[in-house]
């Protein structure tokens, strides 16, 4: 019994003096196409994938670091979000080695003013990953430089869909909402028709 007690005390002491297991941060990123050619006044969109290979989840926040004057940048999702191995949609698969990794899709929309002169412009954003609560927190940062090539003579077909992109973020939200409503409203209408037919059939049957 005495030996067991000593052993237990040793185990407790060793456990107590060991440093607490810290959380790892695994953070993978890919900027798919860092240069987009558009006409003045239209919107360029960029796609960034982010993923983690380990179980621990952590918050990620994108911020705008540098943007030409009078340009607008929208990052979707806005604010911070939690990144884990099963991120919220939209997602794509990133093949790393032979491993299929589910990556979260981040969209960046860069709206150019209609008076923008021809030339290459840089927009800089960054992603910050990990926000612990210790005294000295360790985080990861990843910078992204997006190049927007403004060309008044750009072939609209060869841009990223300049006209549609003008309202890309808003367009997505609105059309997304409408698109979600259409099948529902169509189905609802059909159900209403079915119920009306059913009632009519019942009335006719009863009045025979």
């Amino acid at each position, binding site marked *: 019994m005495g030996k067991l007690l000593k052993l237990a005390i040793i185990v407790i002491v060793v456990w107590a003096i060991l440093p607490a297991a810290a959380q*790892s941060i*695994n953070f*993978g990123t890919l900027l798919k196409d860092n240069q987009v050619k558009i006409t003045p006044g239209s919107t360029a969109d960029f796609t960034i*994938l982010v*993923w983690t290979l380990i179980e621990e989840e952590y918050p990620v926040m994108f911020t705008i670091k540098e943007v030409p004057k009078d340009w607008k940048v929208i990052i979707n999702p806005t604010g911070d979000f939690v990144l884990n191995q099963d991120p919220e949609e939209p997602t794509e698969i990133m093949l*790393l080695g032979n491993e299929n990794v589910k990556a979260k899709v981040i969209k960046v929309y860069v709206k150019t003013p209609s008076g923008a002169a021809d030339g290459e412009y840089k927009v800089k954003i960054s992603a910050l990953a990990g926000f612990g609560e210790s*005294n000295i927190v360790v985080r*990861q940062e*990843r910078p992204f430089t997006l190049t927007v090539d403004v060309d008044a003579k750009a072939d609209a077909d060869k841009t990223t869909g300049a006209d549609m992109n003008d309202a890309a973020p808003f367009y997505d939200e609105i059309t997304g909402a409408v698109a979600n409503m259409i*099948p529902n409203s169509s189905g609802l209408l059909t159900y209403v028709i079915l119920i009306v037919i059913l009632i009519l059939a019942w009335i006719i049957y009863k009045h025979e």
Partner: protein
Amino acid sequence: MRNRIIFSVLILILISLYPMASGDISDTQSTPSTASLELPGLAINQSTPSTTSLTNVIENSTFYVNASVTCVIADCGTVTAKIQYNASSPVPDTLVPNVIGSEPFFINESLSSATKICLFLTQDETCDVSWLLNASGDINTVWEIGVLFESNNPSIPDNYTDNSTVEIVPCVVGMTTHYDDIVFGNTQPNSNENAAEGNSDHYYNVTLDTGSCITDFYIKGSDLVNTTVDSSISISNITFSNTTNEYASSFELSETYTVLKLGLQDLENVTTYYWINTPPRPAGSYYGNITIEGVSYGEAP
């Protein structure tokens, strides 16, 4: 009698409209499955790459295309499988070449062939096939890949797997910091070279993930602040080393990025060590952060 006819017609309309309301109608082309096949045929499946999500493949890396075919209802004869991609149309229409260097893909196997033979498949027998492809095409190009199964028995119709959409992308930046904090514990004011608790265990590791570009690591920090006593400790009081657990080899941290290590290859690890020179400050907990940045080789932090 007339009402009975009207009633019947209405019920028929009701039955015919039900699938629309329940969303059962689909205009997608169905592929045979063991459940739905009533005639002998090839039930097929492509497991990788995904047929439902876009798959990003790093330029010049290899990936497997796996598919399987099951012979249902009756024997299927000799079955061959052909891997195709969409060279000239929206759907796979061309065999993936087996010549090294071909674009956008080539079969990266020693005895490579776009056609593989399953031999004679009897009823309920399954054949698995796979190809190792190299994504040799241009970055940011998107392709459709699928497998065509054919039988030498003319009564067995051909069958295609669903297509996989593959985008060829540049190398990525992925890294693991194996710690999310640095602990110095309690240090005395006006004391120097206080080692972080994990130094002796070589605890503070940063590793570059597989598939990553050649990457540069940078490091920076923020001043440590105690809002309760309204005091701060400059980040330059913290030093780091990327080589040895010796204070003499360390460099001061600053609020702007300084090099941690340049030109790392994938899976390469850097062990870091930290010390703090505690200035004469009021006792209390001080809070700050250290940020490690990974950028492609040669890019500015």
